[in-house]
């Protein structure tokens, strides 16, 4: 009898755990992109319990949503992926009446070309993909992408293991658009990357800042947030937005078509649009946010740091990566040739 009661209690508990009262939210977000503290506060404030999974590539989001088997209510894709997800009909239009904090978004980050009118996405964090270098080892100031192709730094260069970003660098050095789909321009970029390969110590997208700090490389291509943290810790390091320009990217909060907690997802987006909350993410993660109301909550040192918040002149040189469409296949072929050499 005792056992029977225990079983009943257990089943009831299980039943409670499985009950879906709409007060739940499943978030799929980049690694190191939100703090547990913030999620707990959200739960305390709204009663919505949050579960989150992390990913390390936009393609993982596409794959999960396209498979139709995902259970996510919030995803955080980068600009070009928002465009693809919208084209594929995998996102729901946002209900602006529920997003009372929309006015907080910095005007220049509204209505970006990948999602006109912010119909499906709200900017979360943004940054640039430049390079950082060790001033003491290199011995001079660097301001150009030419540095990552310079024979003098042979075996001391780290490049992101990322087809789009590496082609972007090579295309820019050659004076072409990073979004070029021109066959001869891409072939020239491939040849440059093949020539660069003996100089590259490693292609790495996950630990570029750590490897730079360890001294194994002197110049590291990478995202500004992690590199900014490395620069804070080691005064010999400096981050550069090269004179040829670089990628600026924006990660965005979106709601997948398959979301089952659309109401809760809107509440979450609105919560993250509050200056205090997104400001806390900036303080913790070192990336910039596109939110004017957050400025009073962000540490002044971060706001004043040109690595995190580049000035207008530097930003003018940067541009968003576009959707490559069919041309992606040619880049993949060329990238495979670079990596196979």
């Amino acid at each position: 009898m005792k056992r029977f009661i225990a079983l009943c209690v257990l089943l009831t508990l299980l039943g409670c755990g499985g009950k879906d009262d709409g007060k739940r939210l499943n978030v799929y977000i980049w690694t190191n992109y939100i703090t547990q503290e913030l999620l707990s506060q959200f739960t305390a404030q709204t009663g919505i319990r949050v579960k989150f999974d992390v990913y390390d590539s936009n393609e993982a989001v596409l794959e999960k949503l396209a498979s139709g088997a995902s259970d996510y209510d919030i995803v955080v894709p980068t600009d070009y992926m928002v465009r693809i997800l919208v084209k594929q009909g995998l996102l729901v239009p946002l209900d602006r009446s529920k997003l009372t904090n929309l006015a907080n978004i910095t005007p220049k980050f509204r209505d970006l070309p990948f999602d006109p009118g912010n119909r499906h996405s709200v900017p979360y964090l943004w940054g640039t993909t430049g390079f950082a270098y060790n001033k003491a080892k290199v011995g001079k100031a660097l301001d150009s992408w030419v540095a990552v192709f310079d024979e003098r730094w042979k075996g001391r260069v780290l490049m992101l293991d990322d087809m789009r970003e590496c082609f972007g660098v090579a295309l820019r050095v050659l004076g072409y658009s990073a979004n070029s789909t021109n066959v001869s321009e891409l072939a020239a970029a491939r040849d440059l990357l093949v020539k660069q390969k003996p100089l590259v110590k490693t292609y790495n997208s996950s630990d570029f800042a750590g490897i730079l700090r360890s001294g194994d490389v002197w110049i590291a291509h990478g995202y500004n947030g992690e590199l900014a943290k490395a620069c804070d810790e080691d005064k010999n390091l400096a981050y550069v937005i090269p004179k040829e320009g670089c990628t600026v990217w924006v990660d965005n909060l979106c709601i997948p078509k398959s979301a089952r907690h659309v109401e809760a997802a809107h509440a979450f987006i609105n919560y993250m649009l509050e200056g205090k909350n997104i400001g806390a993410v900036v303080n913790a993660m070192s990336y910039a946010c596109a939110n004017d109301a957050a400025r009073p909550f962000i540490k002044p040192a971060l706001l004043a740091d040109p690595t995190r918040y580049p000035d207008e002149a530097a930003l003018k040189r940067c541009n968003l990566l576009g959707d490559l469409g069919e041309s992606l296949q040619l880049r993949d072929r060329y990238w495979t040739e670079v990596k196979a050499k």
Partner: protein
Amino acid sequence: MKSRSALRTPHSAFLLISPTWLVLGLLFLAPLAIMLWLSFQQRGLYGGIEPGPTLANYVRSFESGYTIIYARSVWIAVATTMTCLLVSYPVAYYIALKARPERKSLLLALVVIPFWTSFLVRTYAWMFILRDQGVINSLLMSLGIIHEPLPLLYTPLAVMIGQVYAEVPFMVLPIYASLEKLDRSLLEAARDLGAGAAAAFWRVTVPLAMPGTVAGIVLVFIPSLGTFITPDLLGGAKGMLVGNLIQNQFGPALNKPFGSAVAMTLTAFVLALLWAYAGWARRRGEEVAL
């Protein structure tokens, strides 16, 4: 006795084996069938599938740009297998034939202990050992043997070290199992009939341990051929192997049909090798251990 004979009827035998078939069918055969089907479809623009059927993915998989990658993968797999064999044979031989019986389980446990830690963690450990400021370079520099750190990490050598380290237990255990079963009286007979130690080893021990040796070779060669984490982490993602090629097609390249075709080609290649080996062994009149 009754229950035992009941188990022998075909009906119960089928019941007993059904979990195996269920697992194999759901987790191995079904995915393989999906991959085979995928490999004849066309790629959609954003990672989707357009109905085929087409052979284009297979034609493309034999282009010269890709054959370099296969050649490098086979080379790495062969080199890993040979190195593992050279390292493992003496270890297995010692544990099976030379070690004191009460020591054997301890020695075998030492071979298996690395499996208690995740493969990824062990690979990261190698990164700390091999890097410029790592254990080896710091040691050599503090001893004054070298003045500049040796480039160890992010080289083909690092890939080989990582691969061999990961695969060695898969070679030691089957060879040990074969040697352990070896009938010692055959060795004594060989010596009685005038064979020296070397002759007895080559003409009695090695042939009798062949099933385990071949099993070890197969167990090491196949995973080595498809490896993709080691070349990324220890090789610095500089020498693309077929595992990386397939992974990229399912990831950033958004081309599952081509990725599937390469994977099927790899599978066919491995099957052809095993089949060739089985034929060769049968002609020699050996028992086929596969």
